[in-house]
């Protein structure tokens, strides 16, 4: 696998259509493509050991249980968690944040308390807190962000009070791509006794992340944005916090004992995994982590950084382009939001699609951020390790045709 043309591992990226065209896939912040290694791992599971984990005494049931638990250990080691008991499998980042809000949030937030988030949060890290605040008579307080979507520590310092119970912040903005200073944010939140939830959905796939080094209390991310199948996510929590939390969802697989009128739950992480889990997705996540570790996360970051330098230079030269996340490639991942002047982003994306260039257009599930930027919507290109300079050139070439197609001149 240690070649440098990573595209070779991704069947979808190699596929040529009837006209001999391959897609230039630049929508990795939405979801990533899957390498052969992940597809094969899922196929092998279906063909050799499909069974319900933690349930049967027969050989394949034990085999899937072992595979399932070994992915838990792999995830723990991948994000620097002390041991696998800190790792809860969820159905995605959205699910993980909802569980923390409904369970931990329910316990610690009361009337007059404050929950602090940034204006750049994905709706997944906004709506669970908005609802919790409304239900509890608490306040949802917003931090503004800079041109890369990062919060400012002075503003954080000013808004952290003894009423702040939860700080929920994205590691990397899914629209602007800047990397927040989490170590500092965690220390500041802890100094007032607040708990920090980190939405690492856009960071864990792209940069090295170590939960102990960052000292976050909770962290969530989602598998489909890191080469693995959809419908699986991870919730990391510090041990005492997971211990104190009640499961937000109850059902099969999480109990030590059930009587007609009472229940005793298993310990974390099992008590949070009610219902049959997405075993194929979890096994795919294990294969995805193997893939990323074989490349090395430092190297993944370096590849994206080099591509970003090229992309920023190339896109800046496109006539009539408006770049929202300006500046150089430092302290950010491979995300650029832009528009073509006078053109609605959906038209831009449609015209790019005719060039087989895949980017996202819309509000990116971050409407408060769009309002903050003073736009209705943007186009967004987002990179991953398999992208190439050619993908970026195709994007720039496609963009250069947009105004002409719409009869707005060149």
């Amino acid at each position, binding site marked *: 696998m240690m070649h440098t043309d990573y595209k070779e591992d991704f069947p979808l990226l190699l596929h040529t*259509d*009837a*006209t001999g*065209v*391959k*897609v230039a896939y630049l929508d990795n912040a939405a979801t990533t493509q899957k390498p052969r290694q992940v597809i094969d791992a899922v196929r092998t599971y279906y063909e050799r050991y499909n069974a319900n984990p933690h349930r049967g005494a027969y050989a394949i049931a034990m085999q899937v249980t072992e595979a399932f638990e070994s992915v838990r250990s792999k995830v723990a080691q991948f994000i620097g968690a002390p041991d696998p008991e800190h790792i809860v499998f969820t159905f995605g980042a959205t699910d993980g944040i909802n569980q923390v809000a409904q369970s931990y949030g329910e316990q610690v937030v009361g009337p007059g308390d404050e929950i602090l988030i940034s204006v750049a949060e994905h709706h997944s890290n906004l709506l669970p807190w908005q609802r919790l605040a409304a239900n509890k008579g608490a306040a949802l307080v917003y931090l503004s962000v800079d041109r890369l979507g990062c919060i400012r520590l002075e503003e954080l310092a000013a808004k952290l009070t003894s009423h702040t119970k939860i700080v929920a912040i994205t590691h990397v903005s899914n629209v602007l791509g800047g990397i927040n200073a989490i170590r500092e944010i965690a220390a500041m939140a802890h100094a007032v006794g607040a708990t920090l939830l980190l939405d690492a959905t856009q960071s864990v796939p792209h940069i090295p992340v170590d939960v102990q080094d960052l000292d976050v209390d909770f962290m969530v991310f989602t598998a489909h944005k890191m080469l693995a199948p959809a419908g699986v996510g991870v919730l990391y929590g510090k041990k005492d916090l997971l211990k104190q939390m009640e499961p937000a969802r109850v059902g099969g697989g999480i109990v030590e004992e059930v009587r007609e009128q009472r229940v005793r739950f298993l310990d974390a992480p099992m008590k949070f995994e009610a219902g049959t889990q997405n075993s194929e997705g979890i096994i795919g996540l294990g294969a995805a982590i193997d893939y990323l570790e074989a490349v090395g996360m430092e190297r993944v970051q370096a590849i994206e950084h080099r591509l970003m330098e090229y992309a920023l230079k190339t896109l800046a030269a496109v006539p009539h382009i408006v770049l929202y996340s300006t500046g150089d490639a430092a302290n950010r991942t491979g995300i650029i939001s832009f528009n073509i002047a006078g*053109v*609605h982003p*959906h*038209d831009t994306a*449609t*015209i790019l*699609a*005719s*060039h*087989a260039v895949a980017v996202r257009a*819309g*509000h990116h599930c971050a409407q408060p951020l769009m309002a903050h930027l003073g736009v*209705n*919507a943007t186009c967004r290109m987002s990179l991953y390790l398999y992208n190439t300079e050619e993908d970026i050139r195709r994007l720039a070439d496609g963009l250069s045709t947009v105004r002409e*197609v*719409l*009869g*707005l001149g060149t």
Partner: protein
Amino acid sequence: MGCPPYGRCLALELSDLYSQVIRDHNRSRHNKRTLCDPTVTVPGKNPSCGDEIVLSLTLKDGIIEDAAYTGVGCAISEASVSIMIDLIRGATVAKASELCHLFFRMIGSESLTREELEELDEAVAFSGISRMPARVKCATMAWHTLQVALQNASP
């Protein structure tokens, strides 16, 4: 399944999607203004694109004396509302309703008679939009908004 030919993911050629008529209306903006004293004002929203327009009508004795829109949308949605306004200005409420039905029948890929297509005039520029499901709502938003406006206006 899906749209296998990437380059032609658009079952519709770009030049048909963004035809001359659509480009002209998107550019001209002659119907994009506020009315002084409108009888009805109705917002239209297309969350998939983020298109947001506000349609205003001035009605007198069952006639649409004037119509205009404000707001921001993609080229398809702004062209569609502009073409619609040209069509309904001076028409009776009954006629405007009838045009709504004709437009939705055309979008639903029903085959219309030549007379019916003539009634829709420039709006036939959207006849192929059903081959681009992601953009159908952009074309129909204006007409759905008109339907609501006509309902609100009729006592």
